[in-house]
């Protein structure tokens, strides 16, 4: 039995954070700290305006030293964003990082009980007491150190994927780029010119493809699909299928850059693929000088920004402007009308581009979602809210701007990689704001339109960004991973009856049977989610850092008062 379990040796420090007014604005943090002092084994308690600030961290360290603390409890926001910081902090003053307990009194207390300050205060007291009782029996744990394979897999050979792969290979990492089509380039292959500089798409894409072909450390597999994946951060075993044959690759990190697809506007605005076409179908016509219309009407947000598909696809306005401008440049007396809802041209170049389209005489008419244009024969009727009446526009070519949508096979890929999708089936990043190119799963990264519709410039940015994130792993020979894992201790092995429930239930494939037919947990793969421990009928599996005793201590602390 470790020493820490003897209560007389346990000295807990409790830090109650105001989180500005997020917590302090609703409940009395000073009083909470005073309350904390009355709890058993608590040697010190204080409140801070922001415990996570450098000042707050300094006061934790100071208190650990002054009061000889060996457990630290912070009652504040959420472990999701702040646990690593506090763990790091106490380890800097010599405490094992797992002797820290996080009590969530913001997300799970003041935020959800905003309208009940009194009750929230009482709940915060309960939560702190529970946290303190659990802290008493926390145990020090070691982190797990694993080797890193300095290779990367990039899935998707479009503009984002190619840039990610190029960057990683130039950084010196062995990089594999797989593309499901028979050639690299993605949607760039089907475009004519690229906004906002009207650069020739084929020239641009050929140039990148050349760079990819000539790059050292970079292997390309076209007509290839990811079939299976095993392993964990730093050590992935990847199975790729190319033309029916299997290829096995070993990499340390994976980048998802599979791009997006275009919506086919079947049943929308009389789409017929002839004189009612999509922007995408318009491009080759412009390229081959096949436009023989005098009145062109473009409709924006076809199939997007509605109840079915709420989002703005963000590239269609610029695409329409580009195609309108190119047509106008070729033949200035063609009348082009763009029916839009909100013109999306943020930033410097795009707004300038919009203005250029106006300068060239493109006509813009706004419509509302509740009053969509209607196509009647060779004319379009649209309610013009600016003058409050319906307007008739004759047309001989109707062009529909349809949004980028998630690829059909995103679900399949997400399952293989065990990463989440959002409601529109785009991939879901770890944090919309601050981790835009990470997945919650370490070692797998995301860039480009696979995550959300973006234009080429931003695809490139994100390709590089994902490469950067991958490089933060690949640059190390070894990395530390979470020590709070599931664990089958020697002394519990006799309890295990080999029922394999844990193997079947583990979402990370972290449990298997070894040659002796015994359950073995691969700690590096385990995320400590706890389902195996909960499912184990014989209670053989222990979840480190969330042992039954620790959880029961919390429960008793709550009910036992």
């Amino acid at each position, binding site marked *: 039995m470790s020493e820490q379990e003897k209560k007389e040796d346990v000295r807990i420090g409790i830090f109650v954070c105001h*989180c*500005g*007014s*997020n917590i302090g*604005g609703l409940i009395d943090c000073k009083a909470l700290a005073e309350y904390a002092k009355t709890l058993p084994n608590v040697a010190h308690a204080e409140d801070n305006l*922001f415990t*996570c*600030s*450098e*000042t707050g961290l*300094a006061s934790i360290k100071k208190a650990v030293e002054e009061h000889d603390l060996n457990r630290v409890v912070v009652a504040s*926001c959420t472990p999701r*964003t*702040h646990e690593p*910081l506090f763990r790091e902090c106490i380890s*800097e003053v010599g405490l094992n990082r797992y002797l820290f307990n996080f009590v969530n009194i913001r997300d799970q207390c003041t935020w959800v009980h905003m309208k009940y300050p009194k009750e929230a205060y009482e709940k915060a007291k309960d939560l702190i007491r529970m946290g303190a009782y659990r802290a008493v029996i926390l145990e020090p744990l070691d982190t797990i150190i694993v080797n890193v394979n300095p290779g990367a897999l990039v899935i998707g050979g479009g503009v984002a994927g190619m840039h990610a792969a190029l*960057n990683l*290979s*130039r*950084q*010196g990492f062995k990089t594999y780029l797989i593309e499901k089509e028979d050639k690299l380039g993605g949607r760039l292959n089907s475009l004519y010119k690229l906004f906002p*500089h009207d*650069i020739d798409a084929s020239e641009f894409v050929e140039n990148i493809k050349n760079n990819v072909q000539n790059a050292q450390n970079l292997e390309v597999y076209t007509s290839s699909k990811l079939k299976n994946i095993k392993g964990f951060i730093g050590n992935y075993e990847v199975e790729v299928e190319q033309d029916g044959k299997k290829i096995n690759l070993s990499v340390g990190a994976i980048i998802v850059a599979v791009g997006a697809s275009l919506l086919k506007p079947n049943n929308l605005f009389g789409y017929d693929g002839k004189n009612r076409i999509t922007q995408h179908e318009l491009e080759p016509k412009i390229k081959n000088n096949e436009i023989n219309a005098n009145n062109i009407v473009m409709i924006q947000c076809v199939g997007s*920004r509605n109840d079915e598909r*709420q*989002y*703005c*696809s963000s590239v269609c306005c610029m695409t329409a402007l580009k195609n309108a401008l190119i047509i106008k440049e070729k033949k200035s007396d063609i009348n082009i009308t763009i029916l839009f809802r*909100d013109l*999306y*041209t*943020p*930033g*410097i*170049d*795009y*707004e*300038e581009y919009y*203005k250029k389209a106006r300068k060239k005489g493109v006509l813009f008419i706004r419509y509302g979602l509740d009053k969509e244009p209607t196509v009647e024969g060779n004319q379009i009727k649209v309610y013009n*809210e*600016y003058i409050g009446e319906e307007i008739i526009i004759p047309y001989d070519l109707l062009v529909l701007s349809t949004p980028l949508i998630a690829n059909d096979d995103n679900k399949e890929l997400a399952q293989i990689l065990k990463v989440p999708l*959002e409601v529109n089936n785009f991939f879901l990043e770890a944090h*919309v*704001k*601050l981790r*835009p190119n990470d997945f919650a799963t370490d070692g797998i990264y995301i860039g480009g339109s696979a995550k*959300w519709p973006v234009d*080429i*410039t*931003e695809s*490139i*940015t*994100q*390709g*590089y*960004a*994902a490469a*950067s994130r991958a*490089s*933060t792993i690949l640059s190390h020979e070894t990395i530390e991973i979470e020590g709070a894992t599931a664990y089958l201790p020697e002394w519990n092995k006799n309890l295990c009856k080999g029922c394999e429930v844990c193997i079947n239930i583990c979402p990370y494939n972290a449990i298997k049977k070894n040659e002796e037919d015994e359950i073995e947990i691969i700690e590096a793969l385990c995320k400590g989610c706890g389902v195996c421990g909960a499912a184990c009928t014989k209670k053989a599996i222990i979840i480190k850092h969330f042992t039954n005793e620790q959880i029961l201590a919390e429960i008793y602390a709550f009910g036992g008062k």
Partner: protein
Amino acid sequence: MEEASKRALVIGGGIAGIQASLDLADMGIHVDLIEKKPCIGGKMAQLDKTFPTNDCSICILAPKLSECYRNLNITLYSYSEVQKVEGIVGNFSVEILKHARYVKEDLCINCGLCVEKCPMRVEDEFDRQLRKRRAIYMYYLQGVPAIMTIDKKNCLWFTKEACRICEKNCEKEAIDFNQKDELIKINNIGSIIVATGYNLIEDIDNDILKNYGYQKYRNVVTALEFERMLSASGPQEGHIKRISDGEEPKKIAYLQCIGSRTDRGAKYCSSICCMYTTKEAMIAHEHDNELESYIFYIDMRAGGKGFQSFLRRGEAEYDIKYIKSKIAEISIDKNESPIIVYEDLDTSEIKKLKVDIVVLATCIIPPEGIVKLAEVIGFELDDYNFIKTPPFSPVKTSRDGIFTCGCVHEPMDIPRSVAEGSSAAARAAEIIRGG
């Protein structure tokens, strides 16, 4: 060719520069991070919450600030500016001017005693002049590094050779009036990332805000000022009050495109205002669920992830009224309540709307000092003095080995700034690793 050295220089400690620094440091590349202000954090540190998740801004930023401070691969030079850049891609040497804080960094423990005793009251820049600070001060509460700074321009000792009360009260003897600005030279820099952020149009003298009565009418504030008013650690401690009389507002109007998308100011779109305005209206509504919000816009630009749903939520759950109309001018009534005249497009009627506060979504402009920095480093600027980047090389400048990220080259939101920070790090790493 000489082997490229293992250092990178990042100029600007806002979220873009921080992300670039952290990525490079995590790749094992040493980073020298230069910040002009006394603390890193940039504009994001001044925000209350961030769209579209409405995360508390400083709460999600603070761990990153700490990481920058603690990471052994990052040397942080706060209150410092780049003076000179020599050399070529793969091997630059840089001279940095580190301004004297008149506080010994290794001794100050940010106990605050000096601040308490300082007799001077000075407009607080971080709080957008809505509050007073002292002549010795922490740049902001959660600032990193957590060290005091003496503002020489306002300190009685430097202006009148009197006082020195801070010195007498500092238990750590950290005050040092004899401290001098320091020139620091760093060699072996493989690549430089410029991330000096942005300013806002109210920061420079201009006519554009005059029509809206800004600085004439006390209840007309800019969005960043309002952000400070919302913030728990801001001048109103998280209770929104009218500046004129301290009353809680019941109606707030938000005006978009102030100084942007116009031939009379900046022609470009400031990119972020549509979203942050909705966010501010939501947060204000959370302070008081009877509060009415009106957003006056030209085009609602919400292309980012989750943005459209965010607007829908604003309308449905936070009672935000979106009105397509740009406001010509503002007047006030006897209570200093702003009066807005606008056209209701649905009816063509010209309506008057009296509100308690007007919030102006002012235009992002290039950061102060960018012209000088461009000369020092030798990269090109565009017509507006944003850093010029070539087509489809979003983080590259015109000079080899110099990269950029964040708003210093184009107005953008936080996710894109973060992605660009990583992106610039990737490009710099290519060079440093000889790729």
